[in-house]
């Protein structure tokens, strides 16, 4: 009898121990679940209250402030003209290298609220080579040096974008509207457009920008067409940045997709405000004078043309 009671007592103690362990495990699980749900709820609430750029993991674009450029946030007032180089490189899956196939030098005159964009054909000769080769050898800095050397100006900023970056950025801002000036039927670039106003997605804008087979002057016209896309993009940006919230949203988008070198949020903001202050109809889109040859020589009036541009970043007499 005593033995039976002892055995039952031991069994009971064992059961109690088992129950205690079970309860401890349950409590731990509950604790972990509560913490996890709490953190998730806090995160959700946090995200609800703040706009956080979701890391895309992809760098589509590089925006670089080049040497000897005074910080844009020096806050001493808008004064001097300055120059930005826009580079569209040909880097894409399956194609090596990153030559500067689309080159546009934008001169900005903040005082006069005017700008001029020089379209530079990729085959333009510079130092015995095609000018677009500089980007493949020395990146945006070398490309800026080459274009700056050709025109005779110091380039303060370089924006470098590849095919993916170009389409992604346009899609990120919801595309833009532009007037296609002529019909396009080019199977190589996939550009099939009727003339007229139409909405451009990133992909359509890329097709439009790449078409050169529709024109006898090939890359010369293509370069100018790229300028039209840039102007339409600026018009769209100005529309989106009509309020401070819109401006901040654009900056956030840039940070999601661009690698910024020597630039901060305030620099971008001030640059953006400068661009906003220039009506699109005050931005001239002009291709530089070109001669001939495989490595394109400059046209006869090039020295005067560049001098007109570099004194105040505005082309007035050409």
């Amino acid at each position, binding site marked *: 009898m005593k033995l039976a009671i002892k055995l039952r007592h031991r069994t009971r103690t064992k059961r109690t121990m088992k129950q205690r362990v079970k309860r401890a495990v349950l409590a731990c699980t509950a604790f972990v679940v509560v913490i996890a749900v709490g953190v998730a709820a806090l995160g959700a609430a946090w995200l609800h*209250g*703040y706009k*956080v750029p979701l890391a895309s993991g992809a760098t589509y674009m590089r925006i670089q402030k080049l040497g000897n*450029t005074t910080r*844009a946030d020096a806050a001493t007032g808008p004064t001097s003209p300055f120059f930005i180089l826009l580079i569209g490189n040909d880097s894409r899956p399956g194609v090596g290298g990153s030559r500067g196939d689309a080159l546009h030098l934008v001169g900005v005159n903040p005082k006069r609220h005017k700008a001029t964009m020089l379209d530079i054909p990729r085959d333009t000769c510079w130092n015995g080579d095609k000018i677009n080769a500089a980007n493949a050898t020395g990146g945006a800095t070398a490309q800026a040096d080459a274009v700056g050397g050709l025109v005779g100006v110091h380039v303060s900023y370089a924006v470098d974008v590849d095919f993916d970056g170009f389409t992604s950025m346009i899609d990120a801002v919801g595309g833009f509207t532009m007037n296609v000036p002529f019909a396009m039927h080019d199977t190589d670039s996939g550009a099939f457009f009727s003339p007229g106003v139409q909405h451009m997605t990133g992909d359509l804008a890329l097709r439009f920008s790449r078409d050169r087979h529709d024109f006898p002057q090939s890359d010369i016209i293509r370069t100018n067409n790229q300028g039209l896309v840039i102007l339409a993009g600026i018009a769209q940006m100005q529309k989106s940045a009509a309020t401070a919230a819109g401006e901040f949203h654009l900056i*956030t988008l840039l940070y999601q997709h661009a690698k910024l070198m020597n630039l901060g*949020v305030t620099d971008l903001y*001030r640059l953006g405000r400068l661009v906003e202050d220039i009506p699109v109809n005050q931005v001239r889109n002009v291709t530089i004078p070109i001669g001939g040859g495989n490595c394109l020589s400059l046209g006869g009036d090039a020295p005067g043309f560049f001098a007109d541009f570099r004194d105040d970043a505005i082309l007035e007499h050409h």
Partner: protein
Amino acid sequence: MASWRAVPSPRKGSKNANNVRSAALIGGSIVIVAVLALVLAKLIGSGGGKAAKPKNVDNSVGLVLKLGAIDVQSAGPPARIKTPVQQAVLDASQSYVDDAILAPVEKGKVKDKYADIFGRGVRDAATGHDRAALTEVRTGKLKGTLRATASKVRLDGMGNQTGKVVLVAATFVVNVNGKGSGGPVKIQRLTELTFAPEDGRWVVTAYRVGVKRTTNAQTSAAVARAGTGAIQ
């Protein structure tokens, strides 16, 4: 023996009760933590939940700006506009309303300290060619009873790569009704002042202002915008 036999039955009941208790505990904890998280986030977003008021109000019509919605976008981790920054921006906005909008219609001139809220990059423009749009100096002193109302001040913040807020925009509407020499005067203003730190102070680094003035059934409108820095 009977007592030992009777044990399983109550144990079964207590097991069920334990399960119910555990489930209630977990569910309750989840709800409490979620509610706390939401409250905490709400408090952080609104700067502690206290309705911020300007430290100094210097107008006779009793117009006091109040803080409204706050929205922050960030180029990096989540950012928030800290309470002292909210206060500094609200104070400067109130100062602008008092000195540039209400002082001219109450006393006939813009207050001397009007320029103090502007940063170096825009001060010349604000005191020069944009003064007519930014202030009511051209409207001049109004007669009779003045009525002035304002919307809540919306704050938009921009965080940098480290989540530090480096730009704050204050947007608000101010309406003023009074009587001029030629009859009733109605002023409607939409103001957006963007602030940035400069020499340890939050000052206006950019602005957008639109104003519509109606006098004797004639309406005039003016806009002004500035906000750039030097680029060499």
